[in-house]
């Protein structure tokens, strides 16, 4: 039931922005073609589509970061020409970009107000006012305890970086706010605070654009749902009048098999054995993962899951306790851990995993080169074959495996990270937020690969902030809080409520953002 794009009457509410016949090319790649779409004021318009469908590109055009190669924008009934993000900001258009951009050596407060710092006469920075403002905004937006305004940008966790971007967009007057996968590194608590915020924005008449791959979120928030496919508008749906199946069909052009389920194949053979392990921020971890088992690791922001993963992978020093893989001790260096049979697909793809200026092929093969070489020469044929195989299985949207990774969409970049580690086939594979930003179709494929690996006897430790995903995948869920394991749930007993209970053991009252108007 595709509604053709249509912006004839009824008259648009004030604050409506939109694009008319907009297209964008990057060299030979056509990212967008002829998209006409409105974002009405006082409504949440969700934007969906497979990885690489053009969602981020559309938002970047809307916010002045990219200039369209065809078509134009409008706001409040006037044609809009944006030559820079500054123009867009001035017009009242904001974005929370897919990848947070943080300034490393300045404080959170300066990060948030960069470009519009409060000042006194003579351009003197007004530090008192800056402090007042950040505290007020943190309070108003419900992030008061989560983000210390004096922290430096370089000290922030991925979730905190995301919060900085949200704060940036929500300060000052805004007519249009675009969220590009804002929840992909947030945990439940922050997600709830964010949703409350978005609802308030809508009530204030702001036009909200919301990009996400998470169906649940979309149906909780959106008034309208626009679907992009291959850079074109596949349809616009009324949220109340559509369903998951229909959206998926619009996105991928076919039906997807029903909910993912897998059988338990775990053996009794312990592969990864962690005893009393502590690092600087993680304490007394006891954990076993068996061959063929998928263990899920749940927790809120800063629970210490990523830190545990990095310690096992040899990148953070172990202060006490032991970790062994098939009896061989872990620790030392990432190289040693990999040689011992451990693989880690880390959490932050750009900072920790990708070589942005290298090809998909290079990025896929980097951890398996020693299997692909003869003497020390890389066997190009074998390498290409490997990269080709995973690029196809994970449905990476790219003209060729020689494409530079920086030119891929966020979700497709994530697939390349996974391809590297899936290709490596280690005995223990740790996946830290593996489906961050990944579309529905590819998610299903990744789940299938995880299931295959388990069947082949690989021991898997999956860290995810998306609880439904963990519940569907894991044989067992281990929950962390404050650097410690607070409990463990078997597949049969695991429910969202049970996991959340353990994740917030001390503080079971959800912090509701304080009421108050947003601007």
């Amino acid at each position: 039931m595709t509604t053709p794009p249509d912006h004839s009457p009824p008259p648009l509410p004030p604050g409506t922005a939109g694009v008319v016949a907009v297209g964008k090319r990057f060299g030979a790649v056509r990212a967008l073609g002829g998209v006409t779409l409105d974002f009405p004021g006082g409504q949440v318009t969700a934007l969906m589509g497979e990885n690489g469908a053009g969602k981020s590109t559309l938002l970047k055009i809307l916010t002045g970061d990219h200039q369209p190669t065809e078509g134009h924008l409008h706001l409040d009934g006037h044609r809009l020409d944006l030559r820079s993000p500054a123009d867009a900001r001035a017009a009242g258009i904001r974005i929370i970009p897919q990848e947070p951009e943080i300034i490393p050596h300045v404080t959170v407060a300066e990060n948030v107000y960069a470009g519009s710092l409060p000042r006194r006469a003579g351009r003197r920075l007004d530090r008192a006012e800056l402090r007042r403002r950040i505290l007020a905004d943190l309070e108003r937006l419900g992030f008061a305890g989560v983000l210390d305004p004096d922290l430096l940008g370089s000290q922030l966790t991925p979730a905190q970086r995301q919060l900085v971007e949200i704060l940036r967009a929500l300060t000052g007057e805004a007519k249009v706010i675009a969220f590009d996968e804002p929840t992909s590194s947030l945990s439940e608590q922050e997600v709830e605070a964010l949703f409350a915020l978005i609802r308030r924005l809508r009530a204030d008449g702001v036009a909200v654009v919301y990009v996400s791959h998470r169906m649940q979120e979309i149906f909780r928030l959106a008034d309208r749902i626009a679907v992009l496919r291959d850079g074109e508008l596949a349809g616009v749906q009324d949220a109340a009048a559509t369903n998951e199946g229909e959206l998926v069909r619009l996105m991928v052009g076919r039906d997807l098999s029903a909910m993912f389920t897998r059988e338990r194949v775990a053996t009794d053979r312990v592969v990864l054995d962690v005893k009393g392990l502590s690092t600087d921020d993680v304490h007394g971890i006891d954990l076993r993962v068996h061959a063929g088992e998928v263990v899920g690791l749940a927790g809120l922001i800063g629970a210490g899951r990523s830190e545990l993963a990095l310690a096992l992978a040899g990148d953070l020093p172990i202060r006490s306790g032991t970790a062994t893989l098939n009896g061989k001790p872990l620790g030392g260096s990432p190289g040693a851990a990999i040689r011992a049979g451990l693989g880690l697909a880390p959490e932050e793809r750009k900072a920790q995993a990708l070589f942005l200026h290298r090809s998909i092929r290079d990025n896929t093969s980097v951890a398996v080169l020693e299997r692909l070489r003869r003497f020390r020469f890389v066997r190009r044929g074998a390498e290409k074959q490997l990269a080709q195989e995973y690029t196809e299985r994970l449905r990476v949207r790219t003209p060729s495996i020689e494409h530079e990774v920086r030119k891929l969409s966020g979700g497709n970049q994530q697939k390349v990270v996974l391809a590297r580690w899936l290709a490596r086939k280690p005995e223990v594979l740790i996946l830290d937020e593996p489906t961050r930003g990944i579309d529905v179709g590819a998610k299903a494929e990744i789940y299938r690969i995880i299931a295959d690996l388990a069947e082949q006897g690989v021991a898997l430790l999956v860290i995810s902030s998306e609880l439904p995903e963990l519940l569907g995948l894991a044989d067992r869920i281990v929950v962390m809080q404050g650097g410690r394991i607070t409990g463990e749930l078997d597949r049969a007993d695991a429910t969202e409520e049970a996991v959340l209970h353990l994740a917030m053991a001390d503080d079971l009252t959800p912090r509701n953002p304080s009421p108050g108007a947003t601007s």
Partner: protein
Amino acid sequence: MTALTSPPARPEAARGSVLPSLIARLGAQHLSLIGALVVVLAVFGTLNDNYLSLGNLQVIAEAATITGLLAVVQTVVIICGGLDISVGSQAGVASVVSAMAFTSAGSNAYAGIAAAVAVGLLIGLLNGAVIVHGRVNPTIATLAGLAAYKGLAQLISDGRAQGYVLGDPVFVFLGRGRIAGLPVMVWLLVLVALAVHVLLARTDLGRNLYAIGGNDTAARLAGININKYLIAVYGLIGIVAAVAGVLLTARTGSGQPTSGSEGLELKAITAAALGGCALKGGKGGVGGTLLAVALLGCLENGLTVQGINSFWQNVAQGALLVVAVVIQQRRSGERAIGLPA
């Protein structure tokens, strides 16, 4: 007034009275530099009675002024993610221009200074334009400038020292005058350093420079006009390099196309880096840079005063540079490329 150093990570420290906070802040951030400085002063002071005399300290300060000026502006451009390798050549052009304009304006010092500053500004803006509009990497653009402006200085001067300014009271005042017992040159350095410090630490302009150097995408998305800032910063460098060139003329008595300015870029960059500027941008401050300038100046003077031959001086300077940085790195706990934490 806060300390002469990079912006406070914890603004609380910036409160309180000026001097103790200044010392506390400089101390915490630059302990290794201060330690090295104390060691250098103590060692040479013990070996030589005159080393710590007021006279010698003034000599050290005066000798370090021109490098200091260039190091201060180098700090600014490094903070915003650039680099200027052409500062020495720029100073050379300014030196020659100041002397030649002075002469042809009938021994008018103000004409000489104005001409030098104007030319410096022009060159700086040209550098900025090449980098911003030509999209040339700052290192390469100013590497090219290093050669081109040197050639320019040689061409306009025919490769020879130009003019003679020692008969002029203004130049003599700049080169030899004192105010309140301190050389005029040193006052100039103090003024420029303070102004740049205030710019960096206390104005929104300065904070935007840290943003640009720390993450240019973030800065752009925040609506900061990076191009304008970069061009302005290179323009500022041009002006300060011109002041350095004028001082060169005042000190040596004539306009020098290359002598006295060659190699200044390396000294300025060394001081900025030793003072804590991260070469990839976004970090650093005037305080650290000045400390580094002082350290290098005291060391050089001490070695010379002790009659150490210049070959050993090279070895000693290289070694000290490494030692100071090693200590600094260990303290800051920062991970250099690829090292385990």
